[in-house]
C-alpha cells in the first residue's frame, strides 16, 4: 500500500554490495550529482502507523522537534501526503558536535489508504513530537449493515 516506502527491511549483504557497486559505477559516469526533485525531494521519510477504525483511519507519525507550521498535509482521494522540513535543532555557535544521528532537512511520505477519505473533515494534532491525523471515511464508503427482511 506504500507509494513511498519506509526503508527498514532486513539486510542482504550481497545485494547491498551489488547495489553499492552499481551506484559507484553510476557516479563515475556523472559529471554532477543531480539534486533530488519531486517525490525524491527529501532527506528522510518518517515511519508511520495506520489504524483502520470502522468509520475512520488514524495515521500516527513520529516527528520530534518539528513545528506544526512546518508540516504540510495534503489529501487527494485516498492518497495522503505528509511533507515538511525539520530545521536544525542546534543553535548557531554550537559547532563542536561530537556525535549526531538525528535527522534534519526535508521529509516526505506518501501513503495510499484503502478507501477515499473526507478531506474536509481531516484533523491533525501534534503532541509530544507525535503527529496524529484523523481521516474520516466518506459517508458513502462506510460499511453498512443491511438488514434482510424475511418474506
Amino acid at each position, binding site marked *: 500500500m506504500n507509494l513511498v516506502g519506509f526503508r527498514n527491511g532486513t539486510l542482504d549483504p550481497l545485494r547491498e554490495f551489488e547495489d553499492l557497486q552499481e551506484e559507484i559505477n553510476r557516479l563515475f559516469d556523472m559529471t554532477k550529482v543531480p539534486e533530488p526533485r519531486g517525490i525524491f525531494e527529501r532527506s528522510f521519510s518518517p515511519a508511520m502507523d495506520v489504524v483502520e477504525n470502522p468509520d475512520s483511519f488514524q495515521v500516527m507519525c513520529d516527528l520530534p522537534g518539528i513545528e506544526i507550521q512546518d508540516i504540510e498535509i495534503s489529501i487527494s482521494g485516498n492518497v495522503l501526503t505528509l511533507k515538511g522540513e525539520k530545521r536544525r535543532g542546534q543553535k548557531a555557535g554550537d559547532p*563542536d558536535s561530537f*556525535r549526531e*544521528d538525528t535527522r534534519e532537512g526535508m521529509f516526505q511520505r506518501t501513503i495510499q489508504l484503502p478507501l477515499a477519505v473526507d478531506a474536509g473533515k481531516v484533523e491533525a494534532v501534534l503532541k*509530544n513530537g507525535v503527529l496524529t491525523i484523523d481521516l474520516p471515511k466518506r459517508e458513502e464508503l462506510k460499511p453498512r449493515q443491511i438488514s434482510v427482511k424475511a418474506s
Partner: protein
Amino acid sequence: MAEKTIERKTKYLRPRSAVSESKDGKLRVRIEMPGVRKEDLDIRVENNEMRIIGRREHPASRPYILHERPEGDYLQIFTLDDTVDQGKVDAVLDKGVLSITLDLKDQVKPRTIQIRSE
C-alpha cells in the same frame, strides 16, 4: 545488579541523539523521544553515568494496516568523565525532544586571559 538483569529482558529503544559542546563550556545533549511526556521521563546521574529512560504508552493491540513505528521505552546511557560537573544538569522537554545541558567543571572550561597594559 538485579536492576540490570531486568533491563536486558525488557525491550528498549535507543533514541536518536546529538551531542555538542558550546564555546562557553557547556555540553548539550539533544535526544529525540517522540511520544514521551514530561512525567514519563527518568533522568538519573550516578556513578559517572547519566541514564535516561523515557516511558511511552503501550496501546493494546490495534487494527493496524501499517505498523512501522517501533514500540517500547527509550533508554540511553551516557558515560560522564571527570570534566563534567555532575551537580549542574538542566533538562527541558519540548515537542518530543529532550535537551540536556551539562556544565563542564570550571578548571576545564575555555578561558580568555585578559592582558593588562602596564
